[in-house]
Structures are given as structure tokens and as C-alpha cells.
């Protein structure tokens, strides 16, 4: 297990993390370190535990063994620690999970106003700034149901960014999208990566992975099988399971 050598402090550290769903051992001895500004892409076959892994990082799932430290705070039984972490870790879901009864603008301001105690005007200015960044400021007054999938996912990204998180987690953000909408979301993510955001992405978009990832992580059956920089990972995978997976996913 080695990660890209960087001089900055780690933002996320996982040490020997284990998790079970009943009898099913979904995460096995996971060790992973994410540094400030690092961009990690996690890939692997479905059911390999990659979504569960990133859901553990912001406490959406509890881990049963091992340590998870985010921004110096350990995720443990102490709910105050969990509360401190979840505002710092943004998350974008496969199904967007926008709030359908609120406008796009209200979706973006709800967190800053209610959780951060920001004033309405300030929160709206912040929301507009991020909506511009994801290229849909003109949709601010609409409801999510009036937008396309790609637009909804960009709103979801803006909503997360409004919390000014230290890390962004992406859980298959383009998997529920029609093909013609994938690019607009990936463009926003590339832009975000270029700006220096620390990112952990679970995705099957290998083109995106090649472009932005500092580190590729390959998971299978609950374990991290291989990690490495993309050039190495795609060019000369060491593990047979990685080779098999890449051959299946890159044939087209």
C-alpha cells in the first residue's frame, strides 16, 4: 500500500477498516490515505464494496473495526465527532437526491443557512456563485423536477460545494444519466479537480479517471487489490483481477 508522495497532511486516513452486512464481509482490512488536493478514483466490479467504502468516510455507514480519521477527527461512536465531519465532507449521489419540493436555489442554501447559520442573502450569493460554476445559474428558481438529469446532478454538486467541504465524495455520479448528459457532469468534475479540490470518486468513467486521477484504487470482493498512478494502473496492471476487470471495461 503506497500512495502518491505528497508533502501535505492527509485529509482522510483509513486503517484496517472492516465492515459486515450481516454475514457478508463487505469491507476487508481497508487501508487508504487521501492527502490534501489528491484525487482518487475507486473502481471495481459491482458489489466490490466501493460505494460502501466512501459511505463510511462521511459516516453514512458505520464501520465495525479499524479507524477512520477525517481532517484529524476520528469517526467513532461519539456523535459530536460524526457531526463535525459530515459538514466537511461533501457527497454526490448516483440518484442526485435533490429535494424536489425546494427550488434549485433553496436546495443550495438549506445547508449553509440551517447547518452553518449563514444569513439568507449571503447564502444565496454563495449558491449563485456555485451555480455559475456548474453552468446553470439561470435555473436557480426552478424545481429539480423541471431539469434534465445532467442539470440535476450539477445542482447536486453545487449544493455540496455550498458547504465548502474539504473533501468531495462522488458515488457513481454519472451512472444514472443518459449518455449525452454524462459529459456535462464530467466537465464540471474535471473543472473541480483542476481547482485543487480533494476528491474521492467511485466511477466507471475510465476516460475521466485517466484525466484527473492522481491515484487509482481497484477493489474486488471487499478488498483493495491494487493502487497506483493511472499511467501505471492502465498501462501495466500488476494483479490478474485488475487485468481482467480492465479488459472487460475497456473493450469498447
Amino acid at each position, binding site marked *: 500500500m503506497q500512495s502518491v508522495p505528497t508533502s501535505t497532511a492527509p485529509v482522510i486516513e483509513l486503517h484496517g477498516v472492516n465492515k459486515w452486512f450481516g454475514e457478508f464481509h463487505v469491507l476487508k482490512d481497508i487501508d487508504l490515505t487521501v492527502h490534501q488536493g489528491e484525487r482518487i478514483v475507486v473502481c471495481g466490479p459491482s458489489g466490490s464494496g466501493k460505494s460502501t467504502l466512501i459511505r463510511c468516510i462521511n459516516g453514512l455507514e458505520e464501520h465495525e473495526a479499524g479507524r477512520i480519521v477525517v481532517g484529524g477527527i476520528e469517526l467513532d461512536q461519539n456523535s459530536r465527532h460524526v457531526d463535525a465531519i*459530515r459538514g466537511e465532507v461533501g457527497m454526490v449521489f448516483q440518484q442526485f437526491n435533490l429535494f424536489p419540493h425546494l427550488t434549485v436555489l433553496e436546495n443550495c442554501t438549506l445547508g449553509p443557512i440551517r447547518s452553518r447559520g449563514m444569513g439568507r442573502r449571503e447564502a444565496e450569493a454563495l449558491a449563485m456563485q456555485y451555480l455559475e460554476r456548474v453552468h446553470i445559474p439561470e435555473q436557480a428558481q426552478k424545481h429539480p*423536477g423541471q431539469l434534465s438529469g445532467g442539470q440535476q446532478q450539477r445542482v447536486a454538486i453545487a*449544493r455540496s460545494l455550498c*458547504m465548502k467541504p474539504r473533501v468531495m465524495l462522488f458515488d457513481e455520479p454519472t451512472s444514472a444519466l443518459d449518455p449525452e448528459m454524462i459529459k456535462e457532469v464530467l466537465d464540471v468534475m474535471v473543472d473541480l479537480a483542476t481547482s485543487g479540490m480533494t476528491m474521492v470518486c467511485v466511477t466507471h468513467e475510465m476516460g475521466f479517471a485517466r484525466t484527473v486521477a492522481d491515484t487509482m484504487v481497484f477493489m474486488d470482493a471487499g478488498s483493495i487489490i491494487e493502487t497506483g498512478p493511472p499511467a501505471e494502473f492502465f498501462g501495466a496492471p500488476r494483479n490478474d483481477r485488475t487485468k481482467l476487470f480492465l479488459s472487460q471495461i475497456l473493450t469498447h
Partner: protein
Amino acid sequence: MSRRRRRRGPTALDFVVLAAVLAAIGYVGYRVNSVLVYQWDWSAIPGYFFRRDPKTGEWVANLLVKGLTTTVRIAFWGMIISTVLGVLLAFARTSRRLLPRLIGWAYVGFIRNIPPVPFLFLFYFFISTQLVPMLGIDRLLAQASPGTLSVLRVLFGEIALIPNFASGVFCLSLLMAAYIAEIVRAGIQSIARGQYEAGYTIGLSRLQIAWYIVLPQAVNRVVPPLTGQLITLVKDSSLVALISIQELSFLAMEIAISERRFFEVWLVTGLMYFVICYSLSLLMRRLERRALAYDR
């Protein structure tokens, strides 16, 4: 919006059914007139809406209008209290903790499985002798200024009867809350887990997620059954006549007996309930339209 199915115009069958319905109505009217040999006399009714005060010569509200306002007041406060209670119970029933779930379950099970009349008599005794004195309503009323009293009179009716009125409203609200709780619970349980997770990741507390994300969507989804329940509440407000609260049905009964004009009085009374309930359903339909506006 685009989901609405195209509606067809009337067909031959519709006309047959319509004719049958009209014939049935005509038959009932015929039976009432010829078989019952009922002498219709509406002359006494208008005087029960408004009467001329013999001393001042001014028009004042009489029993039917007084009863109507009392019914509207009971329904108004009943809706507010039972909805608040119902929402709290619904959240209790969907709680992750065992105790709130048990309390909610027991409450709904208790209320739904006994008829309202025994409940009303039993709880009226408890509420009027224990709860209402405990709230200190009498004491507060004694200290109130004339200005406050006139506001209270608009909101709750005759000052001397306020403790009585409160008992009736509480009884009705406790009954209705159980049904509203079940409706709202269905709404809450229809909210996808992703909504909670999204709220969680933007740092909201459990309470904030419930209030800002879950409740508005849950209520929006159950507006039609909720409308039905609120209409039931208005109609069942006539139950509090049993505990001598002088609302519309109670007073209508008195008029019907003293005037011996049963059909006239009850037809008029029924019409008055219809007007309230139908206005309510029109109001709720507007709400429903607004609630669905954001839905695809």
C-alpha cells in the same frame, strides 16, 4: 402534469345511469309527499338564522348561526390541534427508538379500535375535571383585560363556556389525531432514504431533516386522504353535542324538537355542513395543486 389521462365525453351508459339516479330521487320525493303526507312548512326556519332583538330592534344571530359559528370554531381549532398531534404521533411511529414507536402504536391502536362515543364520554369526564382545570384556563380568563376578552370571544366563543368548549375541542382532536397520524405516517414512509442521506451530508440535524425535508414532502403526498380526514373532523364535530357543547347539531336538535319541523331543520342543517365541508375540500384542492406543482 403530462401524466393526466385524456377524459372521455359522456357515453350512452352514462345517460342510463343518470336517468336511473334521477328516477330514484323522484321516487323518494314522491314517497315523502304522498305516503308520509308531510306538510312542509319552512316559515319558522329563517327566524332561527337571525332574529330582531325586541329591545334594541337590531338584527342578531339566532341559534342556527350561533351553532354554525361554534361548529366552525371547533373545527378550526380541532384541525390545528389534531394535525399537530397527528404529525408528532406519525414521527413517533416512524422513530428509530422503541419507546416513541410503542407510544404511537398504542395510542393509534387504542383510539381506532373503540367507538368515538364511549371515548368521548370517558375522556370528557377526565378532560373537563382534570386537564382543563390543570391548564388554568379559568384563572387566566378571570385576569384577562376587556380587550383580550373580546379577542378571545371571537376565537373561542362565549367566555363563560370556554372551558367547556376547550374540553370538546380536545376530545375531538385526540380522536382525529390517531387517524391523521396514520395518514402522515404513510407519507413519511414514502420518502426515499436518499432524501435523509442528502440532508445528512449537508450537515442537517435529525430534527432539521424531519422539518425541512421529510415533513413537507410527506404532507404534500397525502393531501387527498388528509382532506377526507379533515372533512370527517368537521362532520364528527357534531359528536361533541353529546357532551352538551352547543354547536350546530345540538341546537338543530333543540329547534327540530321545539318546532316539530324535523325535515326542514335537518335539511337546512345538512346543507350548512355541506357548505363548510365543500368549501374546505375546494381549499384543499388548491393546496393539492400547489403541492403537486413541483412533481413531474
